[in-house]
Structures are given as C-alpha cells and as structure tokens.
C-alpha cells in the first residue's frame, strides 16, 4: 500500500480531534481563564497531549487570543539562546504561549523560561508529570478511545482488525501513538 493511501499515515492521524472526557471545550477554556491561562496538560507518551494542545489553539484563536506555539521533543530537547532571545523580545502581554514538551527542559531552563514568559497573557504546557504548572487536564487512554480513533480512520474494518486493538493497546501499554504506528506498518506490509 502506498504511503499516501495508508489510513494510518501521519496526515490522517493528525486530523483526528482530541476527545475530551468529563469536560467540554467551553468549560476547559473557562477553567483556563480562571487560572490566568496558566496550566499543564499532563499525560504519558502517546496519550494525546499534543493533539489536545493543538485543539486548544484552534479554540483560542477565534476568541481573539494571540497564540504562540513552541515544541520540544527528544530529538530537539532545547531551544538555542538566539531563538529564545528573539522569541522573548517579541512576546507581549496579549500572547498565550503554548509549549509542547516542557518536560524536555531541565530545572534551570524551565525556571528561566517560566520567568521570561511572565509578561505574556498565559503559558500552557504539555508534560509527562504533574508539578511544573497546575494541571488543567490529565490525558488518559483506554480501549474505547482507541476503538473510536480506529473507527474514525478505517470505519467498520476496525471491528475485525488483526491484531485486535486490545492486543496492541496492552502491548504498547496505552501508548496510542505507537499502536497507530504499528497499524501503519501492518497496512503497509499486507494491504494493497
């Protein structure tokens, strides 16, 4: 199967909106407002933190909030001093900074970043563990969530997919991103 036709290609997976549980978008934004737009989205690897943060950005923009997004990951775990200097110099009191991957920053870098972003309207981060900022949402995964995502990607084929979603969910310990990557490989190898 060609990469562009694979239902588990990154482009298709990125189009899936985050499914909030126990709260809706309006209430989540109200919760953020009550915390002066400072908080953390917490969750394990592959639990949807980035997806949720991106969804939040899309909700904040139409409300006339200015959003500045930054991303760190294991391949790029820090920002260059030159980049940060320029970023902070352009930051103003109307900006809400969205930092994806805050856990990549060491203690000093994190404290420095938090201090420099004080002048902004808000700071929302994603991180693996609680403690960096007050938690606004905890991303959790379960079989039902994975099944919902599979149905969105491949429709009724999700019912009979092999290996089963439960099998892969358990294998990857709830990391839905890795489950979807394994399904990508299966489709690439066995489907035409």
């Amino acid at each position: 199967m060609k990469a562009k036709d694979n239902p588990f290609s990154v482009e298709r997976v990125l189009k899936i909106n985050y499914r909030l549980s126990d709260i809706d978008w309006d209430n989540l934004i109200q919760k953020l407002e009550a915390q002066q737009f400072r908080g953390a989205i917490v969750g394990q690897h592959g639990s949807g933190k980035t997806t949720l943060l991106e969804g939040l950005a899309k909700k904040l923009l139409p409300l006339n909030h200015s959003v500045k997004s930054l991303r760190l990951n294991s391949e790029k775990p820090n920002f260059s001093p030159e980049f940060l200097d320029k970023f902070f110099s352009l930051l103003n009191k109307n900006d809400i900074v969205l930092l994806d991957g805050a856990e990549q920053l060491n203690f000093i870098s994190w404290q420095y970043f938090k201090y420099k972003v004080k002048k902004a309207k808000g700071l929302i981060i994603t991180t693996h563990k609680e403690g960096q900022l007050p938690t606004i949402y905890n991303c959790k995964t379960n079989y039902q969530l994975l099944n919902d995502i599979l149905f969105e990607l491949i429709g009724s084929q999700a019912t009979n997919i092999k290996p089963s979603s439960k099998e892969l969910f358990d294998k990857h310990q709830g990391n839905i991103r890795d489950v979807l990557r394994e399904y990508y490989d299966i489709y690439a190898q066995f489907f035409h």
Partner: protein
Amino acid sequence: MINITISNPRNEMTFFPEEVISGEASWTARGEHKKAEIRLFWYTQGKGDMDVEIIDKMEITYPSLGKANFKFKLPNAPYSFSGKLISLIWAIELIFFPNKESFKVDFTMSPNGQEINLYSNNHLDSNNQLKK
C-alpha cells in the same frame, strides 16, 4: 466555499518539471479573512512527521474579492513518488489568515508525468534511467 481550478492543456493533474502551473482560486469572502496566500509546495505523507517545503507563494491583498488567478513555474525537482513509508506530493494551496483556514489541490510532477512508484522499477528503462 473554496475552490481551486488548475489549468492544463492536457486536461490532467500531471505536470513536467519546470513547466508553468496556473489556474484560478475562488472562495466565499468572509470578514475574518484579513489576508490570504496561494502557495505552491510539496509535502510528504506516510509514517514519519510530515515535511513541507513552500516553493513559491502569491499574496492576495484583497480577500474580499473572492477570486484570484495564479501562475507558478515548477522547479526541476523533487519528483512525486510513493513508497510504503513515504509519499511526496505536490500541491497548490489557498490559505487565509489569521485563522489559517485552507484548501489544497494535489497534482503530480515528474519527467514522465507519472508518480514514481518505489515498489517497482517500472519507472526505469533498460539503462536504469527514468522512462520518458
């Protein structure tokens, strides 16, 4: 509603390297559209993170007009291709700011007008050169 129409005398969505690609974009103008661009770019699709390179772009100063013509000269590479892990796709995109609402149309670019299939060698001749 957004629409992009690409003109091609061959009536196909395939182009050769360094050919000119032109057409018309039309949309329903809305107040929140402050600025717009028509972009020529390629992107990858597959297992890894998407790569994108914008080759050329045209700014639309008055999105309220609801229509704009575009014309870009295609570069000589990269060619459109597909394998199991990655596909490279060419596209024309209309994007509005600040909300980044967008619409794109994909097309193929290669010396023989066909996407190079990395599964097979059908795109190569007996001298291992790209078939014309």
